[in-house]
């Protein structure tokens, strides 16, 4: 028996919400970044569900694009996080307060 589309959309919405909450409450950039990836993958689940329900290929292609872009983002993001860590030896976002106003 196929899983009903509504259930999949519900799971996707839950995952997205967990990701958003993670970004807002966690203080380590790596964990924040993981939460963002969770949001993107929740969106992918939505795209797949809609593509199946609507019998359209657009959703699948969109998922491929999101996956490859997310991979590129990991490369750039981790590079920036590493370079920050090299200069400051700590990466808690609460300490990123050089600029104010």
């Amino acid at each position, binding site marked *: 028996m196929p899983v009903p589309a509504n259930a999949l959309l519900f799971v996707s919405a839950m995952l997205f919400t967990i990701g958003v909450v993670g970004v807002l409450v966690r203080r380590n*950039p790596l964990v924040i970044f993981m939460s963002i990836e969770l949001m993107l993958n929740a969106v992918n689940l939505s795209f797949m569900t809609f593509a199946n*329900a609507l019998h359209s290929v657009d959703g699948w292609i*969109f998922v491929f694009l999101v996956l490859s872009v997310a991979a590129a983002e990991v490369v750039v993001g981790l590079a920036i996080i590493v370079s920050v860590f090299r200069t400051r030896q700590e990466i808690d976002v609460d300490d990123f307060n050089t600029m104010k106003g």
Partner: protein
Amino acid sequence: MAFTYTITAGDWGHIAPQLTLLGVALLVMVIDTMLPARLRGGLVIIALLGVLSAAASALLVAQLGGAPSAFFGMITSDGLAIFSMLVILGATALALLIAPGYIERQGIHQQGEYYALVLLAATGMLLMSTASNLMMIFLGLELLSLPLYVLCAFVPGQQIAQESGMKYFLLSSFASGFLLYGMALVYGATGATGLTQIHAFVASHMPLDSSLAPLLLVGVVLIVVGLAFKVSAIPFHAWTPDVYQGAPTPVTALMSVGTKTAALVALARILVVALGPITSQWQPLLIALAILTMLGGNLLAATQTNVKRMLAYSSIAHAGYLLIGIAVGTNLGLAAMIFYLAAYGIMNIGAFGVVQVIERSVGFGTELDRFRGLGARQPWLAGAMTVFLLALAGIPGTVGFVAKYAVFSAAVLASHPELTIVGVIASMISFYYYLRIIWAMYFELNPEGDPATQGARAALGAQGTPPLMVESSGQSAVIAAKSVSMRQPIALGAMLSLGLAVLATIILGILPGPLFELARQAVGLP
């Protein structure tokens, strides 16, 4: 299902500007590895030639006409696309011109990477402003964001720049998540990702029934939230001041104009073009965003003492004026918006261009104090800054006034006078902080003493106390010792860029007719 679509030469022709920039970016990177270090400054010339040929090919695409869309409706090259491409390419050229002097002073050695990344970011901006499919909009957005993350953090070992890059990266990908979820919901509601198909679906399902409306409207709200982050509309602006302040100034200049142009054109395509049938549903949201952004941006800018940071808030305020063009939901609004984008590009890059001459190290040394007495020390530089600030404030005779007039009159004609009233009040607030800088340049004394006597003292050399500059921010003693004279040298490229921007600000302010006519034609108005 069978997929029978063949890519023709015409398709490639439509993305010739993007391909040109991409090719030149790769070329710059390859040549960089072959050149000896002392010749690498010449790379900026290759990059500029690339931007110029991309602009030429954009004009060629416009001349040739033909089918307005390519690649199965993924890309469009209508008037809106051509106009915004030219705005972006012009902004890129001006931002490239001010880069070499800055790069040299900040001791950035990886010039090849810098220019290649700027060109790649510009490629993404072009792609986003020509996209006519949700996928391409997302892809363009990411292609412009990824190089900008790196460029923000480009100065090695400089904490403030890294902080800027990290903040931009985290908040921007967070916003991308919202944008994507919105796109997924719109796709789920309409079954299409192409903007024309979405338009056709929505138009044929009016009025929206209760099964469709929630999905579509939540999707639209999420898309607006995601793109509002990129155009830094209040309340999604929190990243802007920090990122703009910490990034290298030529990058800030490019980011403030290019990203806004691309994101606003994409937003306009989604809302006004694709979702035109449900204008009444999204309009209140956009009006609220525009009002909050105009008032908030100007009020926050008035409290700043760092000029670069103040310009960041001022760019938020200008995003508010620009949003009026979309919020009114008419073609005239769009014409006013793209005209405003062209004007904003010229005057804002000019202002950041002056700031980068003044700036001592990334993120520091652009306090208002640095502008005191600039009128006496460097009258030409101060004069250029005055022109840009007056234009940003919207004084008649400058292009800024014409742009504001176009946007406000579009709001009145679409019977939204409340937007005009708030806009005018917000502009009056903005006079305070723009004129504050002009006042400092001409009517306040330089706190570090008269430069002429300083020079004489240095020449005598008998005092034993070199005129060291004292500054509140740390780490400045070394830099202060380095800058022997208070007169900041202006690199040739920066001079050219500032001169062009001043000329354009004044000429387009007096004779705005032809450009505005182009903007009207671009959105299909007679």
